[in-house]
């Protein structure tokens, strides 16, 4: 049963990340490769505050959210006014910088060794210990993220983001402050990612850079596109598929097979085929002919 809880938690965490990334890529057309970095910033903020500075979990979680939002706002202001392809490379670079800083600022982050001993959240004297308790806690926060996202992305905001995504020039000619909207959306997504980072910190009680690399980033993008963009259902389907798919190998797996690389190969192939034959993903809407 515990393992089932674990899988559900992992799925929920990815749902939270996918939905915030979808806000950027799917709705607003902001092709961000930095999302894992904000996730990492949130996780490390939580870890440092609770372990080194002895903070209570709730303010640490809020701080992680704010850090994610603020750093995203800063990066956004610096890079969003520059063109599309440029922005993509810049965010790649930003992701690398964050990883490098984490690895090298050892006094703060313990470098490559990561931070251990992150406490679990507690309500009064009760620490959230059990599998079910943790699951409920994470489910609650994820639900909050999904709710806020959903509220934000209803009409008229949905159309406005679509307008920005599809044709920025016309949007500007209609009076839309494209840069400001993008920065705000970026900060919102960054905040969500930071919050999710704190969840992962509380869950695993240990974090290091390996959870926040470019590979994670590619996985997140895959989840957005496999599930389908601009769809809450898609943001659930994507993670479910990509988390459960490797689990199949547990049943089939022979010891001598290099399972992780088989997964990677299949999954790279899947991405290419997906873009060629069903770019809208599983739950996305098909573009009209």
């Amino acid at each position, binding site marked *: 049963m515990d393992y089932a809880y674990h899988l559900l938690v992992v799925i929920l965490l990815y749902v939270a990340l996918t939905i915030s990334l979808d806000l950027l890529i799917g709705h607003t057309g902001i092709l961000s490769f930095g999302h894992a970095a904000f996730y990492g910033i949130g996780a490390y903020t939580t870890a440092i505050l609770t372990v080194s500075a002895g903070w209570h979990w709730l303010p640490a979680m809020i701080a992680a959210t704010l850090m994610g939002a603020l750093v995203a706002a800063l990066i956004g202001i610096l890079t969003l006014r520059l063109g599309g392809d440029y922005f993509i490379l810049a965010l790649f670079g930003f992701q690398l910088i964050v990883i490098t800083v984490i690895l090298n600022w050892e006094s703060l982050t313990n470098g490559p060794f990561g931070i251990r001993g992150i406490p679990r959240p507690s309500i009064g004297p009760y620490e959230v210990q059990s599998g079910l308790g943790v699951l409920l806690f994470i489910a609650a926060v994820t639900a909050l993220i999904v709710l806020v996202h959903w509220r934000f992305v209803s009409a008229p905001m949905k159309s406005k983001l679509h307008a920005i995504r599809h044709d920025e020039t016309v949007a500007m*000619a209609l*009076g839309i402050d494209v840069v400001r909207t993008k920065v705000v959306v970026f900060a919102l997504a960054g905040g969500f990612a930071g919050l999710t980072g704190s969840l992962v910190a509380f869950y695993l009680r240990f974090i290091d850079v390996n959870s926040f690399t470019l590979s994670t980033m590619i996985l997140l993008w895959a989840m957005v596109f496999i599930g389908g963009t601009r769809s809450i259902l898609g943001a659930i389907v994507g993670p479910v598929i990509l988390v459960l798919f490797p689990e199949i190998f547990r049943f089939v797996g022979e010891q001598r097979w290099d399972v992780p690389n088989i997964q990677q190969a299949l999954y790279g192939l899947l991405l290419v085929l997906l873009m060629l034959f069903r770019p809208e993903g599983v739950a996305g809407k098909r573009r009209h002919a």
Partner: protein
Amino acid sequence: MQTLLKVDGISKSFGGLRAVNDVSFEVEEHRITSLIGPNGAGKTTVFNMISAFLPADAGAIVFQGEPIHALKPFEIARRGIGRTFQDPRVYPEMTVLENVMVGVRQRGGDPLWALLRGKRVNAEWRAARTRAEQMLASVGLAERAADYAQDLSFGEQRFLSLARTLVGGPRIVLMDEPTVGLDKAALGKLMELMTRTVSERRTTILLIEHNMSVVMSVSDKIFILVQGEVVAAGAPQEIRQHPSMVEAYLGQSHAAAGR
């Protein structure tokens, strides 16, 4: 009549090429002013400078008495200067109604309000929708409101883009070659829409056009631009005999014959 928009000595060069050279003109309120001239004369560049998509190398642009050349494009639009483009550039995957609603400013469009969302946001949204529906009715697209914009004919898309710009209630609209791709019936509707917009909505129109009969028919004043410079200005009747004008007519009938 008041001068609504004044363009004063603006110039623009691209690399070594002087696309616009010391161009000046004034647009009077509640009138239709036309910019005509051969292809490459710099007309769209002038539009791009007025709407701030391109910075002018020199000169000033003044709207309602205030200089606007330092503003950003969205600020210019918010001041009341609307703009349509040579292509309709509608949003294909949104419905016709949704397209028009993008043009209406409302609280729910502000990211911070979108999160808070309350009675006021919803009320404004409903009001915006009503305005959009009315605008669609006035351009004759009411029955198409629920269709996806990409399913419209080119002519219908043209009217959709006009509706989208007009719904925001701009004081002046810069229209870049709106007649392209319209058949005879649609042309009539367009001209009627233009004159009605000026008279009923008290909007001003600055028009770039190649279709001379339309230009002569709706314009109150015409400026002829050749190779980046204003070579003539006047009411249609005054300017009719100007050599550049004659050339424009001939050029048009040559093109018609050649087709």
